């Protein structure tokens, strides 16, 4: 085991030094991280949008190794950048940093905004590095497992990704998350089918023969609703307060190291769940941090532990989200879905057959991106704070133009723009009715994989459905899928609650003196 880890680090250091010695790396890296921080800092713009817009710019005209520096840099920068308005203005820059506002803003009101920003920067970097370390180690273990994954497991994994995303991302009824995922799956059915080349739902429009392209769908689903919501609301900007010293004290960091380590591990775990993003990681880690804390009453009133729990986890989630993406081609979060779109238009297919060098290179880029975030976050924070003064009625129209040209350039030209707007208006309507959008996008991305894998499995087994039960991996995944569905069915939930309550009361009764042990 130790030999394996040492060997991995040797390969990683080789890739890292190759990247570090190339001056072009720094141009892409600092440019994209700064852009990502600005995107994260501007309320309404998200990490997914930053990665998607850059995908439109880089397209497939640049080597994928170079594009990845920009895309991952923007991803890391944007997740971190969301903390600025959360801490200073109580307006979450991204959904991922919503939990940070609970303690970040009270700290600013106590005159400790600079300290909060410095600690957030440090914990974000440590979180990203924890995620990166886990990615470097676990991706190989899972890749070895993934070699044994065949069509039945692939189909069930894709279904599991859509179901998990639909279940965990729903803010209202879980059924809405599932419906959103199924609508995404249905959208993925459009075009020529992958096995028999039958026309499906093209309605005579030749453009639809190749199905929905990922980038216009991503831009439509994530950019258009934000633009519409933002312009409907009117100008939202703030006057950020003056902040003092930003560089954190080492003593404070070391005192909070257990919180950072725990939140980092949690973030990686949640990130590795298909389709569950940084926002869930932030909230779950915040809740866990509160239950572990010796001073839970301070949470929500300016607790450093609360702030660090949320911020470390949402950054650690990045490494975690890349694990299922690289091993199985299933994105772990919405920005990872955008990254998958970029890989797909560059003809890189994530999964068991992915080039191992590319994985190590991605790990090296993540490390460099987190170091660039650290440098920019500590020494250029005041520049990013000044960005908060820009009202959304100025930058959202600019985003419309950016997404238009980005979507146009990627492939299908003007037809992609039509799809982008139609998907955007539809997504806006869904968001207004509290349907989550991430499952829809995950459905569009995984729909092709699900369709092809399911039918291949059926073809190989000659129509025998037991193939989904008899194979051990498929059996486990089927069990998880069924369990997930049943856990959300109201009568089953009520029965489970009754069982748990009865178990607790039985345990209570057995603890009574005189009861049989």
């Amino acid at each position, binding site marked *: 085991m130790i030999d394996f880890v040492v060997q991995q680090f040797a390969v990683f250091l080789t890739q890292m030094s190759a990247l570090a010695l190339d001056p072009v790396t720094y141009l892409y890296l600092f440019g994209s991280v700064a852009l990502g921080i600005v995107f994260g800092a501007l309320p309404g713009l998200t990490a997914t949008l930053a990665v998607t817009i850059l995908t439109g710019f880089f397209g497939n005209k640049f080597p994928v190794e170079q594009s990845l520096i920009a895309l991952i840099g923007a991803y890391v920068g944007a997740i971190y950048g969301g903390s600025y308005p959360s801490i200073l203005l109580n307006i979450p820059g991204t959904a991922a940093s919503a939990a940070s506002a609970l303690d970040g803003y009270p700290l600013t009101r106590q005159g400790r905004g600079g300290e909060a920003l410095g600690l957030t920067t440090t914990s974000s970097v440590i979180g990203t590095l924890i995620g990166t370390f886990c990615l470097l180690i676990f991706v190989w273990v899972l890749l070895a497992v993934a070699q044994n994954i065949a069509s039945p497991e692939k189909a069930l994994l894709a279904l599991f990704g859509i179901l998990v995303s639909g279940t965990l991302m729903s803010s209202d009824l879980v059924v809405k998350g599932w419906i959103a995922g199924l609508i995404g799956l249905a959208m993925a059915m459009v075009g020529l089918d992958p096995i028999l080349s039958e026309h499906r739902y093209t309605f005579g429009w030749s453009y639809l023969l190749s199905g929905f392209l990922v980038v216009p769908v991503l831009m439509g689903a994530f950019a258009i609703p934000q633009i519409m919501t933002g312009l409907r609301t009117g100008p939202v900007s703030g006057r950020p307060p003056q902040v003092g010293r930003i560089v954190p004290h080492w003593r404070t960091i070391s005192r909070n190291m257990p919180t950072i380590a725990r939140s980092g591990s949690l973030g990686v775990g949640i990130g590795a769940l298909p389709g569950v993003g940084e926002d869930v990681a932030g909230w779950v880690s915040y809740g866990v941090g509160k239950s572990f804390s010796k001073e839970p009453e301070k949470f929500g009133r300016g607790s450093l532990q609360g702030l660090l729990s949320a911020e470390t986890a949402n950054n650690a989630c990045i490494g975690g989200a890349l694990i299922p993406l690289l091993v199985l081609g299933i994105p772990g979060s919405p920005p990872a879905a955008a990254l998958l779109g970029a890989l797909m238009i560059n003809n890189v297919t994530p999964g068991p057959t992915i080039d191992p060098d590319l994985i190590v290179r991605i790990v090296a880029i993540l490390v460099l991106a987190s170091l660039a975030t650290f440098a920019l976050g500590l020494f250029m924070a005041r520049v990013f704070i000044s960005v908060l003064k820009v009202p959304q009625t100025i930058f959202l129209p600019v985003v419309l133009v950016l997404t238009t040209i980005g979507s146009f350039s990627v492939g299908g030209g003007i037809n992609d723009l039509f799809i982008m707007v139609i998907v955007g208006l539809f997504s806006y309507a869904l968001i*207004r009715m509290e349907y989550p959008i991430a499952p829809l996008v995950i459905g569009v991305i995984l729909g092709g994989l699900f369709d092809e894998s399911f039918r291949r499995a*059926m073809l190989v087994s000659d129509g025998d459905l037991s193939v989904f039960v008899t194979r051990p991996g498929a059996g486990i995944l089927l069990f998880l899928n069924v369990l997930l569905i049943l856990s959300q069915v109201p009568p089953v939930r009520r029965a489970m609650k009754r069982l748990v309550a009865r178990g607790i009361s039985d345990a209570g009764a057995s603890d009574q003196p005189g009861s049989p042990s």
Partner: protein
Amino acid sequence: MHDRAALRRQDFWTALLLAGLSLFFLWKTSEIPFFRANAAGVESGRWYNSAAIVPYAIFATILVLSLGLLVTAIRQGGAPWLRRAVTADAETGGFARLCAVAAIMLFYIFALVPRVDFTIASALVLQALIYGFHETRARATAIAVVAVAIPALYALAMHFPRSEWNTPQDDDWITLAAFVILAVVALVETRLCHGRLDKAIAIAPVLSVLVPFLLVIAMAFGFRQNVPNRTGLLFKQVEYHYYVTVKPWLAGKGR
């Protein structure tokens, strides 16, 4: 975001719509061969290999889930009173602004971008969105929508077929004129309304021209990507001078 009762009222109608759509797509799926298929001259007559099997499962599940949503919506008091939910939104003026944003966006993507020079079309839309939505004033929003609608409808009416998207440039000139008029109107009207000029409105005309201009140049010559309407009024000149003036000059300098 919403009060629960209003949300359930929307859920009621959404569930009905989803059920209707899933039935329609189940019917469309029935057009895909299920028990016997002949693809590219090859007979493949097994149900489990059919291109319809997964879509059948998807739309049947959507149908079941939408019926489940319908039941939930009815149980939680969502069946009647839909009109009240809509009027509540309309009363705040939010609904009108939303319709205005959607209209500008649709005019931009479906009428202007395919037919008009990208920089000019984007400048008009940027100016309209900044002026029309920076303040919550109904008059500014209405002026912005009209300013985008006139050149967009003209472009649609005069150059609807795809064959005419790139050739004539009269729609480019009309869009440019609409942009200039809107920029002037925005400056004057805001000043008359408030007695002073808001910083965002003041910089809007410059920003509206610079952003798309720099973007299209960066995309076309920096990132080497395809850009919309290469024969547009402005881009045609830029591209010509890039290849005829700038590139030879740079090559000569490098020698």
